[in-house]
């Protein structure tokens, strides 16, 4: 695990395109956060637009110049039809009704769900967002990172390696799955993998207890994993391209940020 050391950095590597999009969103967010402050004090029933605690912990040592696996796709660019398609693909293939995952439904109208502009929080402690809608003491800090996709944690060079790093903790080596009080479905010889959008959507948005990886895996990485799962574990030879993944990213992503702290 020589590469282990390189993967923990939580610096912002979002890319120029993303920075621009986020920047515009932030302007709107800051504006909406500043304006109603006076009212907020006297009327605690805050509107959703007031979630920004005006955190501006400017990151240093971060830069958009470092390597990024798939060239910084702005996640906000996918069209509404694709987002809708995502949800229905997940629902019909999975047969699990409304649980296509967080943000897959595209019903969240607010473009900026994150709060503040924390420049990466290596300890997760820099955020002291005192009014975080996700709330929970362990999630306040994490939501500050929301607007900055982090494609640097998983370093595998191909689908098999990426599967080992991102998927194996639950779905087990060779996609065997596991059974305890609950179960992790086997991915090997799994007929549901016949639907490409189903597999992509699962990885992007998660399902049930599974967190989505849309925040942490690039389109290219997801394509690699999907091709590994479908081809190597299920003998389905048609390939998925990063562009196919990009189309399935939700229009207004509310990607799950993994927790950063607990008791």
């Amino acid at each position, binding site marked *: 695990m020589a590469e282990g050391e390189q993967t923990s950095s939580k610096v912002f590597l979002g890319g120029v395109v993303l920075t621009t999009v986020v920047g515009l969103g932030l302007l709107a967010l800051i504006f909406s956060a500043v304006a109603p402050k006076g009212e907020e004090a006297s009327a*605690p029933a805050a509107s959703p637009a007031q979630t920004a605690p005006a955190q501006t912990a400017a990151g240093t040592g971060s830069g958009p110049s470092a390597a990024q696996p798939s060239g910084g796709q702005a996640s906000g660019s996918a069209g509404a039809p694709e987002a809708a398609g995502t949800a229905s693909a997940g629902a019909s293939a999975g047969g699990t009704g409304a649980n296509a995952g967080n943000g897959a439904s595209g019903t969240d109208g607010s473009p900026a769900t994150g709060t503040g502009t924390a420049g990466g929080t290596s300890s997760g402690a820099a955020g002291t967002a005192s009014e975080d809608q996700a709330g929970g003491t362990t999630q306040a800090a994490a939501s500050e990172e929301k607007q900055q996709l982090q494609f640097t944690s998983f370093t595998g060079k191909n689908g098999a390696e990426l599967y080992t790093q991102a998927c194996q903790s639950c779905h087990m080596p060779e996609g065997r799955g596991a059974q305890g009080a609950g179960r992790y479905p086997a991915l090997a010889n799994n007929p549901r993998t016949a639907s490409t959008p189903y597999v992509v959507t699962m990885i992007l948005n998660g399902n049930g207890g599974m967190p989505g990886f849309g925040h942490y895996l690039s389109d290219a990485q997801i394509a690699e994993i999907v091709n590994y799962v479908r081809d190597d574990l299920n003998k389905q030879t048609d390939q998925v391209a990063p562009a196919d993944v990009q189309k399935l990213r939700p229009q207004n992503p509310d990607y799950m940020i993994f927790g950063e702290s607990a*008791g």
Partner: protein
Amino acid sequence: MSEINRRSFLEMVGLVGGGAALYQVMTSMGMAQASAPKPLKLEGSGQGKTVLILGAGLAGMASAHELRKAGYDVQILEYNARAGGRCWTLRGGDEYTELGGFKQRCEFAPGLYINPGPWRIPYHHYAYMNYAREFGIKLEVFPQVNYNAYIHRKSGTKVRLREPMADMQGHVSELLAKAAAGGNALGSEVSAQDRERLLEALRGWGFLDKDYRYSKSLATSAVRGYEEDPGARLQPGVPSTPINLQTILSERLWADLTTGMLYEFQSTIFEPVGGMDAMARAFESRVKPMITYRARVTELSQNADGVTAVYEDLAGGGTKTVKADYCICTIPLSILSQVKLNVGQELEQAINKVPYAPSFKAGVQYKRRFWEQDDTIFGGISYTDLPIQTISYPANNYLSNGKGVVLGAYMFGPDAVRFSGMDPKARLQEVVRQNAQIHPQAEKEFDNGISVGWHRVPWTLGCYGLYTEETRKTDYPVLCARHNRLMLAGEHTSYWNGWQEGALLAAITAVEEMHKFAMQS
């Protein structure tokens, strides 16, 4: 209400109405008099009514304990052969088999342990503290902030926490003092009178000299530590050299200074003596006759008359059915979302919307306590930007000549996912290798270890419930509500996610609400 808004609002009230008005408003906002919630006391008897509790973690056992006191007939179903859930301690001789069949045996010396789950109790976790008082659980201080622990960077930088702490404060104060002294830089933000006060404050708070400079001196060394400590006779101490601002910023040394400032980690913060499971054992000794162990719940339904659960008896075999008037279900949502449910569509959908956080811990036994003997670190936490994130030192048996167990890794996020997916032996090797980058003694002194990746834990499939802003608004209230004869309880129905306090508060409120409902019907 954010802290800034709250403060400016109070300033406004203070200006207009004076101190009395301010105090009145603060009291009504629940700020001036924070008082500990009292232990639960239920009025009326639940005699003749049955409650089924699913899960014998802290939420389940606290619910059972309170309901039994009120006269209810309680039964608990628990998947594991032990009670406690995530309130869990691993000691020498314990075996742990994770999903995938990977089995580990803990080889720690007698008296040594790790808590794979929660391990800290803030003083303001009143529900926990009340039970600790009631059960006589002994607490010891958890040294959350150790000024002599390391902040380490994979670049090779390794400093004591007190150094960047003093230096960051000093450099920032010096800069701000320059701006304040310059007059116009701060513009109308600070009045002329306040400018003088600000300069005085910066000098004191930032350890500046009479010229408002933060520099190498015995005065700054009195904060950041000395090159050579003061001693007897003619030894006043040798001053140390501050880390320059550029290094603090480029290495992000400031980022690990704020953890201990957070309310949830502030002093005094505790741990139970001898292991976190002291609370689990205390509850279990009170509710044990009610627990059916090795029961895997497969179905849960309710109708107008009551609740029905079906479970697989993992000990004796076969499928069994339990009926009760009411149910408090503490099964983690990651598991519950896989149980066949007929409890109301809205609730069933919400149960499916909460993913679980990745987390990874490794306990490593070293042959001697080199962090104390060589590094003068007694308890507390060192921080690194390596995947292990932290090394935490034992907060007991200081100066012991025997072996010691450190928490060699406590990981969240993608790295926790990655490490959880590794073979236990490979994980441990990597953890020790990374420990050795901070403590070179680690490779030589390594004895044994055990690791827990929370997504591999068979009975939780993850560490704790994760919400987005959206699901906190839409699904969370549904999960928190009583659904006829059923209520959910656990850290996932609290704002203290991943803390035992969340589980206990959720249990207490579930019991209150269910009791109220039972008394009405």
